[in-house]
């Protein structure tokens, strides 16, 4: 025993290991439970994020240039498809406007200031992404000073892509909806089927083989079909109702023939986005 403690280097290594494990455990708890990290971490993150925005700017410009060329190649086909949709879209727009007006009047009559579907938008740019992508985290250039709060949902393009997990003063970290983090808060969603029935569940992960989000905790006898729309249900957390998540691509039934896992095609490519919108729900609550 005396010989063991006489080995100075071994003792130093052990102390470093214990200190590191403690720091990992402590910071992990802080990240999961506290609304914002300690001041020193917030300042370091804001400085790093500002510098990262400058470093990534030329690379993003090149990336966007390539995307523009690809878009140009696809322009003709997209134009044909859009021409078909546009007549229907005009009708939907008119209906939507009428419904919105009607909805607003009804809310006034009921003295409802805000409902689960009301929200404000905070636009943000992506500045950086976690290099070793274990946790599917990326950084944005908006923080608490712009009204961002922990657990707010984040959308890009057509639909939901993640939620805010850490808020600094002028930057935030966002965890993708596809994360494999078992400790992550899950998004409550609902499937709207062809009969306009709503089926609740949660997005529980991402299937790399099928490149689809997985939805579980479904308890229904209602039919779920390929192509059904999936939106957020507004239950729990800070996510408003009605954010588009994706479409059903396949359904895996359990031994009793009930849907156990539903595979969803995300509305947005989860590996290609540069501008996002943080959603701030008007109605707050657990």
């Amino acid at each position, binding site marked *: 025993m005396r010989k063991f403690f006489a080995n100075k280097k071994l003792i130093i290594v052990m102390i470093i290991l214990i200190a590191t494990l403690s720091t990992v455990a402590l910071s992990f708890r802080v990240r999961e439970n506290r609304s914002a990290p300690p001041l020193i971490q917030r300042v370091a993150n804001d400085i*790093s994020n500002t510098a990262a925005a400058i470093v990534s700017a030329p690379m993003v410009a090149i990336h966007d240039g390539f995307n523009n060329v690809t878009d140009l190649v696809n322009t003709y086909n997209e134009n044909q498809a859009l021409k078909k949709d546009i007549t229907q879209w005009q009708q939907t727009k008119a209906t939507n406007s009428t419904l919105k007006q009607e909805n607003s009047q009804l809310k006034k009559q009921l003295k409802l200031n805000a409902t689960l579907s009301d929200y404000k938008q905070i636009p943000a740019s992506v500045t950086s992404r*976690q290099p070793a992508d274990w946790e599917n985290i990326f950084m944005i250039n908006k923080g608490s000073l712009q009204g961002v709060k922990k657990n707010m949902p984040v959308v890009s393009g057509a639909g939901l892509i993640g939620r805010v997990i850490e808020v600094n003063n002028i930057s935030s970290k966002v965890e993708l909806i596809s994360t494999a983090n*078992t400790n992550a808060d899950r998004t409550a969603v609902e499937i709207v089927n062809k009969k306009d029935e709503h089926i609740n569940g949660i997005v529980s992960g991402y299937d790399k083989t099928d490149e689809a989000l997985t939805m579980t905790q479904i308890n229904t006898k209602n039919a779920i079909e390929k192509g059904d729309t999936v939106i957020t249900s507004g239950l729990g957390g800070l996510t408003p109702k009605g954010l588009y998540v994706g479409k059903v691509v396949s359904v895996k039934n359990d031994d009793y023939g009930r849907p156990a896992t539903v595979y969803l095609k995300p509305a947005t490519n989860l590996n290609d986005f540069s501008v996002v919108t943080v959603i701030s729900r008007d109605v707050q609550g657990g």
Partner: protein
Amino acid sequence: MDRRHFIDISIVAFLGLLLDGALSFAGQGILITPQWQVAPSFLLLWLTFVTYLMPSDGRLLWLAVGLGIVYDFYYSGIIGFYAIAFPAIVYGIQWAREYLPISGVYAVLLYFISIVVVTSGVYFGHRFLGVGGEGFVGFVSQVLWPTIVVNVVVAGLLYVPCNRLLARWRVES
């Protein structure tokens, strides 16, 4: 190593830290896909080359600790993984360089070992916490292997310019 060049090394290292994330973001869809993930490791490359090619300096160890903490702060919020991985690599290379002649092959070999140690260490750390659901086989085939291939090729290309720059700084020091 004089103070000016130590500051220069620190600035390049910090740029490497930012470049890792910026490249992951700008190259998403190519570097990060459902089939594979390549983690850019410019900071680790710079730390490996500096430790191997510059005269031994105790401050490099503290620089690695500082950069590791900032890396943990900025990229994950879980502090400890890179804060211990980077100085461990610097310490290991400082020990190994006593037995190795200066050569491009050894520099790239040391970088190869550094990537394996850091990527695997951080992977097991995350698995321990339940963060990151990649199985071990998936990790080796879809993450570690592509990361090694791309980064070792980059190291081969950057060895000559880095060596020239560091040789000049060595002389000036």
